């Protein structure tokens, strides 16, 4: 199973190398991997249907008790099959859809990496691993939405999706950490066993809110729904795959996965079913309002995500079965419809439904596929979407809370979705032929295979609902329930209330569609509300963040070296000084044994430092700074540290040389500061001097632990074969530190090199400046 997850990443890494060698048909070969994975996961079907689950684990970071554990049950298998199956179709589709696009390799890299991340997400049995895969899907989604990175709207949409989902991801991480603490384990299968203890814990509510925040942002629930339609800036195969069939369902997956641990409480049921219900209705409403075919589909995806969240919230056995059926049905028809939309865009050259018409003559196969899948979307028999919708209505009618409200929302949604389905499948293909930007013709077979297979499955599962129902759907519902569930799916449940409600919704929907233009007109009058909607809120938040960052940068990064130094020094003095004054109770080392010549050198040092500050000659300042350095070197010699002393002398020498080299570059020696400023700077410097002196006196006075120097001296020869302990420390004991230091040295050199060789910006010196000097 590890290989199943990692193979996607491996192939993704090889794509840039493989693609040019395989040529235009590379996509067909890449599609073999997801196809093979589908077959692999399909072999688990009989066992999972019989109620078995599989768990494998590999040690990952044993030191942190992190393991890479995978867990396969009904829910995970349903997702894994959808991910790898639709992944194969989408990869195949893309080789025609993106034919001739020079950026194709990037597409395959990202789509395969995404597939692997998504598989990891649904198969992980460890919260931390799940979270990492979760974030990986956000990142690959960001890159795929921004695939057309030269278009500003694509970049904006990509960033919006990233900010919303990763923002939610942060909440989710906090939620997971709480969950791990409360439940006593980061292993999902263990947490699912301790549901009652978790639900009874004081932290249950904050934990639930955090996890829901993560799930709701990822699955585009109101008020976070706005990022999903904008994500349609991605190429259509991406929309079909990430933003309809798989990634946006990650949030719903998480709700379903954690249902046995967190679900069933009043808070859970109310939050999920209310947010889900409102999202469902909002999505359906906005779908009818839109005219871009991808937008209609995106909003109807929002509708479906809302429905699934609501079902996960209701949490009755009926709702769980409906969850599985609706999820499968939606992935089949929505994947197909997106691929059809891509074909329309590719062959007719437009995404606007109003510009299409009468295309059934030019694209007969596409028209049939669109019709089948749209019927499933509308929830009409004999398609699988009908079964899912009937089950959903049955579940809503028997909801533990708010049943009448949810039922009303579900019926209204049903009506709106029928109208949206008409807009997608009737309007472009029937009626008078419209003049499209391209002369339309049928799409190549690589682009038809995917929607054809998905539509055929919608029909097959509709006619024979026991096929998925007895096995996969039952097993999925069992994962939600945490106990075995037996689902019996049928096309005909007899004359009952859900059927009557369905009929009502369809009738209303047909009426809505026949008046689509007028309905849209009425809806557009409400568009002014958008300015107060969540997307406007997002824009304001982003703008405010930028302004705050700008203001902070202007204060902190003001470009004056002296204020950086002042800030650093004052912070140090403040923090350390405060600690010293309030916490330190011991004395200072008195009676230091200072020799006469040590006083002399110290005096020399102080005199040179004072001279460097007060002199009016630059050369004099350089020389006196040199004197300070050499005086320090003298101290090193006095305290028997020849290595340090030699280094210090050499560094001082080279520093003086460097200063001399740049001396001629500098403008005339001038006084830029007022006496007051100098007084202030002197005070800051004096404070630092006092602090360091105090620290040193304390350090001499106190010995907290046995000094390590004794160990170093004792072990230097036997362990490191060296008599010079300083050198042994540098190259052996602390070699890693030294490695870091020499990297810093080299980086500094590169920095100087870059500064001199590639000047730029307002301080750029021109040749005129040179001659003036």
């Amino acid at each position, binding site marked *: 199973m590890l290989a199943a997850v990692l193979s996607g990443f491996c192939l993704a890494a090889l794509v840039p190398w493989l693609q040019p060698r395989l040529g235009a048909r590379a996509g067909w070969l890449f599609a073999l991997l997801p196809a093979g994975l589908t077959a692999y996961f399909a072999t688990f079907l009989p066992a999972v249907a019989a109620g078995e689950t599989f768990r494998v684990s590999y040690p990952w970071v044993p030191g942190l008790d992190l393991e890479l554990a995978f867990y396969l049950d009904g829910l995970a298998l349903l997702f894994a099959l959808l991910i790898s199956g639709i992944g194969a179709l989408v990869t195949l589709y893309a080789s025609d859809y993106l034919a001739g696009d020079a950026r194709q390799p990037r597409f395959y890299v990202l789509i395969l990496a995404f597939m692997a991340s998504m598989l990891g997400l649904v198969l992980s049995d460890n919260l931390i691993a799940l979270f990492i895969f979760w974030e990986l899907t956000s990142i690959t989604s960001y890159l795929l939405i921004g695939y057309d990175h030269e278009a500003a709207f694509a970049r904006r949409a990509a960033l919006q999706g990233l900010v919303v989902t990763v923002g939610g991801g942060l909440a989710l991480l906090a939620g997971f950490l709480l969950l791990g603490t409360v439940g006593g384990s980061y292993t999902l299968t263990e947490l699912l066993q301790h549901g009652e203890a978790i639900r009874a814990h004081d932290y249950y509510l904050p934990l639930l809110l955090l996890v829901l925040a993560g799930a709701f942002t990822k699955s585009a629930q109101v008020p976070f729904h706005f990022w999903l339609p904008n994500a349609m800036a991605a190429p259509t195969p991406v929309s079909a795959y990430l933003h309809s069939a798989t990634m946006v369902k990650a949030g719903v997956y998480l709700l379903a996965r954690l249902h046995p641990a967190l679900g069933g409480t009043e808070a859970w049921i109310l939050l999920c079913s209310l947010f889900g219900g409102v999202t469902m209705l909002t999505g359906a409403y906005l779908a009818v309002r839109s005219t871009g075919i991808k937008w209609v589909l995106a909003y109807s995806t929002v509708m479906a995500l809302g429905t699934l969240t609501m079902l996960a919230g209701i949490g009755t056995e009926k709702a769980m079965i409906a969850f599985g059926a609706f999820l499968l049905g939606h992935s089949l028809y929505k994947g197909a419809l997106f691929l059809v939309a891509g074909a329309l865009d590719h062959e007719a050259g437009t995404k606007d439904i109003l510009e299409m018409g009468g295309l059934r003559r030019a694209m007969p196969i596409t028209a049939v596929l669109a019709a089948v899948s749209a019927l499933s979307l509308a929830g009409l028999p004999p398609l699988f979407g009908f079964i899912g919708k009937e089950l959903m209505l049955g579940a809503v009618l028997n909801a533990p809370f708010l049943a009448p409200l949810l039922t009303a929302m579900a019926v209204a949604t049903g009506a709106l979705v029928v109208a949206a389905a008409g807009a997608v499948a009737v309007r472009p293909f029937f009626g008078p032929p419209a003049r499209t930007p391209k002369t339309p013709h049928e799409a190549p077979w690589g682009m038809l295979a995917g929607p054809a297979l998905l539509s055929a499955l919608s029909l097959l599962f509709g006619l024979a609902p026991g096929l998925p129902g007895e096995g996969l759907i039952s097993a999925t519902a069992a994962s939600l329930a945490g106990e075995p569930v037996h689902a019996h799916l049928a096309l005909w449940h007899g004359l009952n209330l859900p059927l009557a409600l369905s009929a009502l919704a369809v009738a209303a929907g047909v009426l809505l569609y026949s008046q689509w233009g007028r309905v849209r007109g009425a809806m557009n009058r409400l568009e002014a509300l958008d300015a107060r909607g969540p997307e406007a809120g997002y824009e304001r938040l982003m703008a405010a963040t930028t302004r705050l960052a700008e203001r902070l940068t202007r204060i902190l990064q003001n470009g004056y070296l002296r204020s950086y130094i002042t800030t650093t020094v004052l912070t140090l003095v403040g923090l350390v000084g405060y600690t010293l004054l309030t916490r330190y109770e011991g004395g200072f080392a008195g009676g230091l044994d200072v020799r006469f010549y040590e006083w002399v050198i110290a005096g020399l040092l102080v005199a040179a430092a004072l001279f460097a500050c007060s002199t009016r000659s630059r050369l004099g300042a350089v020389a006196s700074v040199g004197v300070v350095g050499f005086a320090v070197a003298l101290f090193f010699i006095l305290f028997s540290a020849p290595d340090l002393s030699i280094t210090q002398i050499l560094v001082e020498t080279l520093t003086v040389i460097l200063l001399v080299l740049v001396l001629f570059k500098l403008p005339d020696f001038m006084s830029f500061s007022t006496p007051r400023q100098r007084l202030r700077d002197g005070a800051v410097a004096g404070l630092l001097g006092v602090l360091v002196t105090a620290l040193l006196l304390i350090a001499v006075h106190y010995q907290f632990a046995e000094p390590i120097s004794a160990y170093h001296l004792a072990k230097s020869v036997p362990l490191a074969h060296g008599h010079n302990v300083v050198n042994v420390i540098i190259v052996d004991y602390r070699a890693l530190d030294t490695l870091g230091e020499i990297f810093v040295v080299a980086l500094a050199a590169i920095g100087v090199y870059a500064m*001199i060789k590639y000047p730029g910006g307002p301080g750029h010196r021109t040749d005129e400046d040179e001659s003036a000097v």
Partner: protein
Amino acid sequence: MMQPGSLILSTMTRLLLPLQLLFSVFMLLRGHDLPGGGFIAGLVASAGFILYLFAFGVAATQALLRIDPREIAGAGLTLAVLSALPALLYGDPVFTAQWWHPSLPLIGEIKLSSPLLFDIGVYLTVIGSMLTIVISLAEAEE
């Protein structure tokens, strides 16, 4: 700016540079037991080249070096990183010192070690970095 071509400076430099380089190698190799080591030796060698730069100018120094000093620094860093690896071959944690005592004809036994390799890496990095800085500054000057 200093004027290349001063007779005394150039004559002295011709004599001093080889001595300085020899001295730097001496400092490098004896560093493990007596004051010295890669940092100090690198600074000594850099000082030698800088003296040469003052005496003969940038172009002559670059011709003498043959290699771009940035590459010297890079080689030094590479060597330092590589010296961490022999420990892995022997199953020790990274950077554990390894010692070899091969004996050569005429010379006798010599002590080789991964810390010595590391120190040579430090030596080269210091030379490369110092010369990168000084040569770019001097070039900007010319």
